[in-house]
């Protein structure tokens, strides 16, 4: 098994690779050079980096303008200050105008757990799903982040990528190929379906192993492609499992859980769905990411507990 890797390192490598391939990439920062780990790219391509300072609205607006000239604008800053500070720029300048802007939403979820609620980004999927045209991805590990970024740079149109800042255990082999819209089945089973968003995938895999050890045959599905999404594949997946549990470092509202509920209701499926998503009315809780994940049941133990609750 390879060593855990930071997704950002892989994404920066893809940006360098794109430059070598002659793609007209411009990276936009909002005093987020360290957040994005852009240094190697900036050293090699200083003319392709634009740091606007702590001004996210202007970062996104300028990115749209840059894209209008034929360049590929890539914004790279901290998730809690991307969508909500500059929502109207994202909604209008990027999504409504359908400009070729790629948004790297770095350190999403509880990545900044100890820094408090102002720094938690657990509502980003809900926000970006309300926008048109934009593709939405949440890579689970470094090989997938590489593939997602390669796709994003070649897709013409807005892309939102939910990113992390920790070294994440590698679930995918180096040879992994990402298909936009596909649900990535990491373990194929037949009774319990575990649906995972982003870097919670190792926890979902671990939960799958624990359930298997107890005689169950769980499926572990990685939802790295939120939009596009093969709804027919999702319908069949939900229909072929009796119990479904969703694990996402995101609010109950508007994220993966909500997406699955939408399909269950619209397709009139019988699946029993439980979720480890963050409940409404969260206390003002800060702590390490591990502690926050444990508190909300966003780990293998929490997923197994949720399945047991459903079965009892």
């Amino acid at each position: 098994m390879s060593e855990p890797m930071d997704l950002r390192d892989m994404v920066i490598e893809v940006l360098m690779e794109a430059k070598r391939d002659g793609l007209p990439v411009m990276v936009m920062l909002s005093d987020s050079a360290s957040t994005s780990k852009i240094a190697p790219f900036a050293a090699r391509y200083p003319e392709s980096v634009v740091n606007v300072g702590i001004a996210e609205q202007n970062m996104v607006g300028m990115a749209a303008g840059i894209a209008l000239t034929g360049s590929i604008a890539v914004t790279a800053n901290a998730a809690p200050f991307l969508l909500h500070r500059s929502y109207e720029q994202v909604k209008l300048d990027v999504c409504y105008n359908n400009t070729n802007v790629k948004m790297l939403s770095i350190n999403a979820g509880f990545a900044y757990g100890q820094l408090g609620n102002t720094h938690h980004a657990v509502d980003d999927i809900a926000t970006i799903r309300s926008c048109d045209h934009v593709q939405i991805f949440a890579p689970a590990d470094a090989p997938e982040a590489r593939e997602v970024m390669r796709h994003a740079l070649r897709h013409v149109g807005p892309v939102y990528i939910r990113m992390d800042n920790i070294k994440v255990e590698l679930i995918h082999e180096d040879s992994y190929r990402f298909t936009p819209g596909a649900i990535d089945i990491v373990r194929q089973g037949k009774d319990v379906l575990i649906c995972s968003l982003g870097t919670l995938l190792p926890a979902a895999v671990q939960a799958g192993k624990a359930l298997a050890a107890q005689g169950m045959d769980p499926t572990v599905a990685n939802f790295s492609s939120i939009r596009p999404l093969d709804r027919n594949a999702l319908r069949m997946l939900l229909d072929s499992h009796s119990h479904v549990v969703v694990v996402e470092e995101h609010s109950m509202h508007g994220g993966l859980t909500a997406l699955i509920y939408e399909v269950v209701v619209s397709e009139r499926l019988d699946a029993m769905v439980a979720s480890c998503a963050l409940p409404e009315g969260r206390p003002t809780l800060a702590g390490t990411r591990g502690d926050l994940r444990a508190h909300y049941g966003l780990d293998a133990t929490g997923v197994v507990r949720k399945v047991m609750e459903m079965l009892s």
Partner: protein
Amino acid sequence: MEQIRITSNPYELDFNGIRAKARRIRVTALRMTTRSKLGHVGTDLSEIDILSSLYFSILRYQRGDIDHPDRDYFILSKGHGAGGYYATLCEAGFFPRAYLDTYMEFDSHLPGHPTRAKTPGVEFSTGALGHGLSVAAGIALACKRNGRSNQVFVLTGDGELQEGSNWEAAMAISAFGLTNLYWIIDRNSLQLGGGTESIMPIDPLEDKLRAFGFTVSHMDGNNPAQIVEALSKARQAGDNRPQALIAHTVKGSGVSFMENICAWHHKIPSAEECALAMGELDSDMTVGGSE
């Protein structure tokens, strides 16, 4: 086929020619608004001399090849001035006159605010205020870094400058030395609810712009001779500060009973008022129809 380089405006009209175009554009905008019973006619009349000067003298573009890579860019940040903008684009030949009859209608080529997916010549969809300056800055920066000679013209309102995003953009335009960007401010001193200075003062505007690093010039924004002169001078300035041009305008300019009356921000002229306005504009065109 190889594209020819664009080096000039396709019309290059003199001041009298621009004035005549502006009069026709006013007539069109008034008729569109009267017909559709929707629009921001005071804003349209405020900006029309600026737009006419840009499209018939200043902007370098090519008719029939509107996406030409050498073209100058124009962004209408005050998107509610759509009527004046559409009337100008039509007069400059960007789309057929028949479109004018569909202003604000269902799925029209000419919706209530500029929509680039709908209207030939519209570079960017606007409507919410405080967006255009950043977008223009992005275009200017990309052109500058890529060694392209395009120039970027952006028209903001004055009330619009109450949006903080403009000042983020202003900081960046100055810091990045975007001397290929020309920021024109339609300073008619009125906004939806009243005078800008009574709602939230913009002044001292020149001091603010200078403090942000701009070279500031003033012009009568309803006088094409002054507009063209100020823009030409700004283009030739050759200093390393970006250019901001305060265009002192009259909201409702050209129609006496609309001038400086806040209600005409989005009041709709009756057929009688439209006829009266046509009389003032010395036009015998009747209301309705594209010709």
